[in-house]
């Protein structure tokens, strides 16, 4: 704290009511002698003789806590804006995840909250999202718990307010979990406010720090991990720097955003070996004669194509209306679409698969998407992507019995249930069928639903055919034969589906966003040529 003599004694004593060990760092205050002020309380005060900045004060505190054998340090501002009683919210989270940084997320709904604080918070959260790829919340809040050992191991350059954002970025890179707990915040009326934050200089240094951190994020150097966690499913939507493109679309429109893809996609094609490997699993089967350099070029093209589809989707979600979705070959499923019976819609990770149901909306059927509802922009998608958001429902495959009951009820009610046919949410059952010259695993979920409910499946793919044009075509309809057993139907159906997909990939080879080696793990794989 710095120049907060008016409040510090009260804050420190209230803290000690909740946690036994309290420590004050006096960052060169000139308004009072804190040692004297706290003398009768027994609460130690460490003093910087000059004002050295908040980051340095936190470091001093962390060293002192470490020396005293403490494992966790909770930092609270001395100016009275934080309520020491909110310490209680941190304790269970720390106990559960001792490696985590816990941020007190301020409730900004109260009176006297300056607009600049609200903006600053959003701005800071935005930068950290760029830097870490994580949707961190309230990254400017100073009320936080730090694991001391990790805190001291993270090397930060900033020493002032920029320290607090820098340490979050570095902690995220190092693999530390970052959690939030809700806290209250008190803003005094403007006249009584004491803050050491200097709007111009501190904002300048913050921006400077953010620019450096973003640059660091995109440098191809590994980050030292302090905590290794079981590999999280890495989401490329985030890795593509989605927010970066969001801004670009706003500023320059669709084509401007496409232009930026060149940088990011070259980046991933050159340096992100894990995703390149999954892309090559497909490309080497689709283009068996291409050499390594040509394949790298294909990888890059594939990334560009996916980037464009992502941007298009963002554009749609935010009300863009220039994209056209052409319904092709819908007559193949004519009777199905007109009838009152439900069916299973089998799609694939090709083209803009999230938009395949747009042309279906004319048929007045409710569509249930079997997908995890935490998909990042689902809510906005429902609001913006579909013209009739009420006709879209979500069935969570992670829900009770994999959503089986909901799926069956939907099909019985004459609705459409949309399922991914090429790879799905970690479902267990797959069959091996011939695909692009080898045996590949395809999930059987869609076929099992269709067989049980005695409904057909319609296979639907989307393809980007021009800057503003998509074709959404029905490749075919697959239906169980009378008396055909479930497993026989799943095997035959998956094979038919694989052939439809192969046909599609003959025409649109660089719109396959499967990014998974579905051929691996099957014995007797040789480089058979495609039939």
């Amino acid at each position, binding site marked *: 704290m710095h120049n907060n003599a008016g409040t510090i004694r009260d804050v420190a004593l209230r803290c000690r009511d909740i946690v036994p060990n309290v420590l004050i760092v006096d960052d060169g205050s000139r308004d009072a002698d804190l040692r004297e002020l706290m003398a009768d309380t027994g609460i130690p005060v460490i003093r910087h003789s000059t004002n050295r900045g908040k980051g340095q004060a936190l470091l001093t505190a962390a060293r002192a806590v470490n020396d005293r054998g403490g494992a966790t340090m909770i930092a609270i501002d001395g100016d009275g804006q934080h309520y020491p009683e909110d310490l209680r919210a941190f304790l269970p989270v720390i106990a559960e995840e001792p490696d985590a940084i816990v941020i007190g997320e301020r409730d900004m709904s109260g009176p006297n909250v300056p607009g600049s604080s609200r903006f600053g918070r959003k701005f800071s959260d935005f930068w950290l999202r760029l830097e870490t790829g994580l949707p961190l919340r309230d990254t400017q809040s100073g009320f936080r718990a730090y694991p001391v050992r990790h805190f001291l191991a993270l090397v930060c350059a900033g020493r002032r307010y920029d320290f607090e954002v820098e340490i979050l970025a570095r902690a995220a890179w190092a693999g530390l979990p970052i959690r939030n707990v809700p806290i209250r915040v008190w803003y005094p009326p403007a006249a009584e406010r004491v803050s050491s934050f200097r709007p111009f200089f501190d904002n300048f240094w913050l921006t400077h720090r953010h620019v450096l951190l973003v640059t660091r994020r995109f440098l191809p150097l590994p980050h030292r991990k302090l905590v290794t966690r079981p590999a999280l499913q890495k989401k490329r939507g985030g890795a593509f720097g989605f927010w970066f493109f969001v801004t670009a679309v706003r500023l320059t429109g669709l084509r401007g955003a496409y232009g930026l893809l060149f940088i990011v996609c070259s980046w991933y094609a050159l340096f992100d070996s894990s995703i390149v490997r999954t892309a090559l699993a497909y490309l080497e089967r689709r283009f068996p004669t291409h050499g390594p350099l040509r394949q790298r070029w294909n990888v890059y093209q594939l990334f560009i194509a996916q980037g464009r589809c992502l941007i298009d989707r963002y554009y749609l979600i935010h009300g863009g209306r220039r994209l056209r979705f052409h319904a092709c070959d819908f007559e193949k499923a004519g009777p199905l679409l007109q009838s009152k019976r439900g069916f299973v819609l089998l799609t694939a990770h090709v083209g803009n698969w999230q938009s395949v149901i747009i042309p279906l909306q004319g048929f007045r059927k409710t569509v249930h998407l079997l997908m995890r509802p935490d998909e990042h922009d689902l809510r906005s998608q429902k609001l913006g992507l579909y013209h009739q958001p009420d006709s879209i429902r979500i069935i969570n495959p992670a829900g*009770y019995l994999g959503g089986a009951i*909901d799926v069956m009820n939907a099909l019985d009610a004459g609705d459409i249930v949309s399922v991914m046919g090429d790879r799905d949410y970690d479902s267990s059952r797959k069959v091996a069928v011939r695909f692009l010259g080898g045996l590949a695993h395809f999930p059987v979920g869609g076929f099992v639903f269709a067989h049980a409910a005695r409904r057909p499946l319609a296979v639907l793919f989307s393809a980007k055919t021009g800057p503003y044009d998509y074709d959404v075509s029905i490749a075919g309809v697959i239906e169980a034969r009378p008396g055909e057993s479930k497993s026989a139907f799943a095997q035959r159906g998956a094979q038919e589906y694989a052939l439809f997909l192969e046909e599609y990939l003959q025409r649109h080879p660089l719109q396959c966003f499967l990014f998974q080696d579905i051929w691996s793990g099957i014995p007797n794989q040789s480089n058979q040529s495609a039939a």
Partner: protein
Amino acid sequence: MNTPNLSKEELLPKIRVRLKELLVSHLALEDITPEEIGDDEAIFGEGLGLDSLDAVEIVVLLQRNFGLNIKDAQTGTDILRSIDTLANYIADNSPNPLGNASPEEQK
């Protein structure tokens, strides 16, 4: 259909037997006979080891054979536990607690 004047206590064992037969035939459980299924054995996960795709079959089986529609996951959670919970639910709710022979069975 043909369950005149049977009390619930008399019905339950018959329902259990019928259910086990239906499960084995519908789910093509090859290494298990109806007699080997325990009345209170968990149907999903440990126990019988069925998964969510099998749940689809059971939902359909209840509908076609017993005229029962499970409308929500909560009901599902309560009744799809074991043969016992299923049989109880059928005895209390089904218009046709001993089931009818479905066309699939006759093949």
